[in-house]
């Protein structure tokens, strides 16, 4: 019997080889998708094709569970020991980590489930939770798994749910960032304005929504700074008020100018004292023994002032860089050069839009974009003639010259104006008024230029008592004026314009919400706040109030007066752009200006927490010297301060390190691009192999059927 079976086997093999030779002699016809339209495939072939992993992976529950079992096993193996080569082929149980009898590809659903549970139990709770959240099974199935897991895991150890914020997933978060993230996720969970944002997104889409989300982000930044300043600077000073001159009477104009009644109040720098508050030794200045009263907490006001501002800036910087890197990481992809049309077809539809009119508009938008893309691809070969290119360059140059000259003109005019201004109560408002007026008018001029030039150009804004209190007051006025002018601009730009369009010109078109201009206004307001926080610690509170009011005003105006945008805006790239714009010119400029003021400028002699010091930074230095004198054990702290913080060598070293890191990353990206290209070729080759095998399988079965 053995011989006959071998004989049969050999005969089958040889016939197969004949068939193979025949197939090799045929030309290989590469027609993609042939198996689908090929009615000649035998039912056996079709059955085999239907059970291929690529066709079942999303369908059957068993397949999903097997796939995730493999994934979990790989994850566990990766975390515990270095992976050995070709682990799947080896038969040694100690290497395979599971028994040979339970081969996962052949098990039943129950067995697969128990295997998956066993693997999940070996993960850490955080990883387990993450794996459970991301497996694409139905909720009922997940709940069963979860129940089985909780029954089998150790009793008493409560499974801990990681927060869905990004920090919960990465293992190495520094404490500061995780604290900020925790607060952020808390605020996000509180979900202010959830329904309002839903309404806006439903009617106007993700692009206009990004402006309001940006506003909310700015609000969060301001609330953070406000909290820090409130707790460490404003509250202690409010509890121990300095002896001050009699306050001037309150007239209504103070709300606009910030002077008068507000000059000697908590709002400005001049109010804060330069002594240590609550110090029991202060009452005996002659060097006699300090009375041993009940232990009190002396509070060094100048130190607290400069440190709180430094810490709030540092925190803002960290939050900004984190959100910028997160949104940049989302929008930048290595090796993404082609694929515009496919991406447009599958990702252009905004699922948030729910209003009928907006949906219709969105359909038209997508249709137009697709037609444009097709036309562009068709005409890509024919380039413009020399004349057209020259014409385009001339227009571009003219537009640049006009923009730059207008900016220079504004700068010169403002400088002249601020130097020849009289210092009276109401006249103080004139400079901020002029600046805000320019801020409002210039963008419209630039929009006109842009339509002529068919390109966007960002607006370059002009930035310019103690003298610190004066600066603080100036900035307060700027902030208030900016707010008033934003309101006026909303009123005239949107409401009145819509009325004019409807009634006078009888056009059924409402004005559009100008996202770019509004975002720049927000960034301008935030820059003012950051510039002014050193001189007016309560400015973030005013900015917070202003942002809250602005949200409601803009939302009402949007709903009543505007229509959906007709231009396609990519929401995520825009968010990245807004945050980058906030970080680089705005925050960096404010930080540089503040560092310069703290490190080099001489504070005024008569008021404020830094009276009599050379620079504001000296308060920190004298404190370090004091520490050194009082406690000789911590001389290392003074040494660190002298040689690391004050030495410029550290700055150069950090810049060098940063440049090296950037270069390294560029090389990594270049290598990744090369790998992507190689992998794409490999996938194409595998695809060809698959088609070849299917054809061969079909021919084998055909042969067998013909013989039978």
């Amino acid at each position, binding site marked *: 019997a053995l011989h006959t079976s071998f004989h049969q086997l050999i005969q089958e093999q040889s016939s197969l080889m004949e068939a193979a030779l025949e197939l090799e002699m045929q030309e290989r016809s590469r027609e993609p*998708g042939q198996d689908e339209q090929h009615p000649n495939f035998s039912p056996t072939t079709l059955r085999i094709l239907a059970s291929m992993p690529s066709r079942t992976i999303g369908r059957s529950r068993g397949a999903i569970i097997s796939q995730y079992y493999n994934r979990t096993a790989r994850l566990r193996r990766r975390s515990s020991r270095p992976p050995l080569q070709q682990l799947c082929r080896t038969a040694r149980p100690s290497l395979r980590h599971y028994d040979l009898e339970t081969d996962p590809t052949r098990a039943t659903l129950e067995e697969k489930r128990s295997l998956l549970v066993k693997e999940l139990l070996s993960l850490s709770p955080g990883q387990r939770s993450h794996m459970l959240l991301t497996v694409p099974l139905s909720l009922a199935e997940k709940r069963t798994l979860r129940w089985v897991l909780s029954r089998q895991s150790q009793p008493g150890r409560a499974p801990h749910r990681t927060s869905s914020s990004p920090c919960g997933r990465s293992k190495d978060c520094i404490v500061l960032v995780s604290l900020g993230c925790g607060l952020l996720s808390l605020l996000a969970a509180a979900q202010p304005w959830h329904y309002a944002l839903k309404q806006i997104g439903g009617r106007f889409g993700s692009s206009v929504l990004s402006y309001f989300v940006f506003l909310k982000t700015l609000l969060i930044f301001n609330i953070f700074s406000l909290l820090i300043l409130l707790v460490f600077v404003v509250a202690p000073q409010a509890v121990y008020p300095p002896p001050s001159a009699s306050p001037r009477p309150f007239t209504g104009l103070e709300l606009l100018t910030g002077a008068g009644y507000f000059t000697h109040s908590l709002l400005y720098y001049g109010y804060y004292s330069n002594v240590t508050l609550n110090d029991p030794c202060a009452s005996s200045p002659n060097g006699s023994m300090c009375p041993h009263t009940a232990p009190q907490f002396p509070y060094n006001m100048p130190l607290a002032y400069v440190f709180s501002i430094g810490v709030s800036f540092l925190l803002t910087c960290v939050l900004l860089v984190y959100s910028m890197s997160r949104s940049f990481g989302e929008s930048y992809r290595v090796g993404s050069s082609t694929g515009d049309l496919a991406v447009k077809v599958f*990702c252009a539809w905004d*699922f948030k839009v729910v209003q009928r009119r907006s949906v219709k508009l969105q359909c038209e938008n997508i249709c137009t974009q697709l037609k444009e893309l*097709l036309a562009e691809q068709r005409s890509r070969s024919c380039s413009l003639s020399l004349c057209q290119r020259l014409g385009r360059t001339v227009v571009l140059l003219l537009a640049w010259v006009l923009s730059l000259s207008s900016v220079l003109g504004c700068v010169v005019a403002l400088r002249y104006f601020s130097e020849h201004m009289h210092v009276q109560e109401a006249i103080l408002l004139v400079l901020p008024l002029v600046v805000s007026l320019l801020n409002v008018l210039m963008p419209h001029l630039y929009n006109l230029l842009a339509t002529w030039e068919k390109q966007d150009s960002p607006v370059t804004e002009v930035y310019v008592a103690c003298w610190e209190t004066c600066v603080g007051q100036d900035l307060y006025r700027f902030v208030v004026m900016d707010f008033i002018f934003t309101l006026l601009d909303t009123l005239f730009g949107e409401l009145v314009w819509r009325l004019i369009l409807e009634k006078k010109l009888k056009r059924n078109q409402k004005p559009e919400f100008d996202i770019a201009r509004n975002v720049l206004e927000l960034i301008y307001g935030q820059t003012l706040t950051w510039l002014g926080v050193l001189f007016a610690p309560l400015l973030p509170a005013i900015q917070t109030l202003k942002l809250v009011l602005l949200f409601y005003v803009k939302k009402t105006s949007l709903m009543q007066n505007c229509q959906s945008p007709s231009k396609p805006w990519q*929401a995520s790239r825009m968010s990245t752009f807004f945050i980058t714009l906030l970080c680089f010119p705005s925050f960096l400029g404010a930080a540089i200006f503040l560092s310069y003021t703290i490190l080099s400028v001489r504070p005024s002699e008569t008021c404020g927490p830094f009276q009599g010091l050379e620079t504001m930074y000296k308060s920190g230095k004298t404190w370090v010297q004091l520490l050194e004198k009082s406690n000789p054990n911590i001389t290392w702290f003074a040494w660190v301060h002298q040689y690391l913080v004050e030495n410029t060598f550290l700055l150069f070293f950090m810049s060098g390190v940063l440049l090296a890191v950037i270069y390294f990353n560029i090389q990594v990206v270049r290598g990744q691009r090369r790998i992507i290209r190689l992998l794409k070729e490999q996938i194409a080759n595998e695809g060809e192999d698959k088609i070849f095998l299917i054809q061969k399988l079909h021919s084998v079965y055909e042969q067998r059927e013909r013989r039978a």
Partner: protein
Amino acid sequence: MTRVQCHCALGKKEKPTALAGRKTEDCTFFTRKEILRLHGRYHEMAPNVVPMDYTKDPDVKLPMQLIINMPELKENPFKERIVESFSEDGEGSLSFNDFVDMFSVLSEMAPRELKAIYAFKIYDFNTDNFICKSDLEQTLNKLTREELTAEEITLVCEKVIEEADMDGDGKLGFADFENMISKAPDFLSTFHIRI
């Protein structure tokens, strides 16, 4: 985010039935408050059928016609496909678990991979696990409300397959689709429904 204590004593064989228990909360991206709010929305679609008390895990399913009339889905051209992709019985009716699952995947906290899996299911009209040319044609017709000419549709379909198909079989498998989605930074923000 408060923990909801288990109703049953330890050791007793407990069924996973508590509506907003810890188990449901840990399996979706919603908090307990949001799950209860979703239950309110599910209930108001058919108040006579959906019970308020879910501790006995009733086997209640709402048909597709009710669900696609929700304001969040009513104007969406893919509403039938969305509901079918999350339905367990293949006819498009959703139990409460499926309902929560659907909005959980479409929420902004779901990761990109999970959304890609379900987006692929939605755009695969003939459910053969591939996005072939006919699927693409149907997608385009729904997107543009049949404003494109037949020639333009054919051209777009060919170009899409040319751009995204990597293994040369003439249709998009899940790997091709996922690769294409990874190049689209907008996907996370557009494939998102607020509830």
